[in-house]
């Protein structure tokens, strides 16, 4: 069932490749705006790179949240999913996993190119990718709570940002901190371990909260 759900969502995403691509290009464009507005000094760019890439990843992953449940909600599929005997926890987890595969993983794979634009050394590039691989699933998991709570509301897009961004702060701190540490020649392991710990907590608790929120929203 789990695999079937993931496959279904991936197929749907594949049929609408433009949506996925637009999120990715949003990420690239936002990051590219910073050198244009700040100036091309390598030293300055290198020191702001972790923060800029991570903030852009936060914003980009929020764009895809609106799609997480909205389409299924509109055509009634979501209601049927709630009625199935399978645990809602697993359904939510499958949907989040699929959404991460199409939005989080491309961001992480694209990030070394952006890191090169900012003059990051090779070692930091791999830390950047690793931190995004660990961090973006947390963003998807926490974001799914916000997406479920705001399902079908007026102005849901802006509201999600208000609800979810404060909860993203630890991920931002640890993720950008890891890259920052590697630039300064310190081991990034502490930050990456903390990021992994946050991922473990979010993995256990947030699908549960999302299921509760979905039941409330679909009453």
């Amino acid at each position, binding site marked *: 069932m789990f695999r079937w759900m993931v496959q279904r969502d991936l197929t749907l995403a594949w049929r609408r490749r433009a949506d996925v691509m637009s999120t990715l290009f949003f990420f690239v464009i936002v990051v590219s705006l910073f050198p244009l507005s700040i100036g091309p000094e390598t030293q300055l760019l290198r020191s702001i790179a972790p923060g800029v890439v991570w903030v852009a990843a936060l914003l980009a992953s929020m764009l895809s949240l609106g799609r997480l449940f909205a389409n299924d909600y509109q055509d009634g599929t979501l209601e049927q999913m709630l009625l199935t005997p399978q645990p809602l926890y697993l359904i939510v987890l499958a949907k989040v996993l699929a959404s991460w595969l199409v939005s989080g993983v491309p961001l992480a794979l694209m990030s070394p190119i952006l890191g090169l634009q900012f003059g990051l050394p090779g070692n930091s590039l791999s830390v950047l990718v690793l931190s995004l691989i660990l961090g973006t699933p947390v963003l998807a998991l926490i974001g799914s*709570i916000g997406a479920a*709570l*705001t399902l079908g*509301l*007026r*102005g*849901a897009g802006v*509201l999600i940002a*208000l*609800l979810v*961004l*404060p*909860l993203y*702060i*630890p991920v931002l*701190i*640890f993720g950008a*901190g890891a890259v920052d540490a590697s630039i300064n020649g310190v081991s990034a392991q502490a930050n990456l371990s*903390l990021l992994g710990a*946050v991922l473990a*907590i979010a993995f256990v*608790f*947030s699908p549960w*909260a999302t299921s*509760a*929120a979905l039941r*409330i*929203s679909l*009453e």
Partner: protein
Amino acid sequence: MAKRKINWYKYASPVNFYPIAGRMIPWFAIPAAILFVIGLYVGFIKAPPDFQQGEVYRIIFIHVPAAWMGMFLYIIMAIYAGIGWAFNARLSSMMASSISITGAMFTFLSLVTGSLWGKPTWGTWWVWDARMTSTLILMFLYIGFISLQAAIDDPRRADRAGAVLALVGVINIPIIYFSVQWWNTLHQGATIRILNKPTMAPPMLAAMLIMLAACWLYSIAIVLYRLRCIIVERERSALQVAAAAA
């Protein structure tokens, strides 16, 4: 030994609680006003000036209670929201909505007084100090809760959605707090402590505690007052029936 039994369930109904809340308000509001006056008197006139900071430090008499209230009220709000969600108790959820505004107000107040104090003491309005940053994030969490409830038209859905958000926020608060503190120590060598006083003069401590008590009583009074407004708004028809029956 005839013990009078109180039927608590009766008072869990908003319509029945409405008149009681009305009667309770003066019992909290009047002591709050008296304690505010005493606290300000002790704080401004009795307490000696600080030997390092002079007169400036006196803002802590409102700043520290406001910061504490901001934090406590979030937890209390989450508890009420959780009870309202788990037991389907409307009154609890209404309490949570009512508390959220007061909590946000106190958090805002503590940020403003903090920056007013920071300017003459640290020479800057804002420092990315761990406590200030986490208070700012707490403020964002309040804003999220309030705007989520404002965006949902159906009051029962608003209550439950708010409860999920408040509980998620409560789990997150320690994580946010530690991440911010840790981030802060990484970036700045020396952290600035807000209350770097090993010993406080007794009148200072007394003034602060009196002001804290006053803030608690004020919060209870204003929360009950707002609760009455929410009850009137939501349960208008039931109140009219109750009034007609009485």
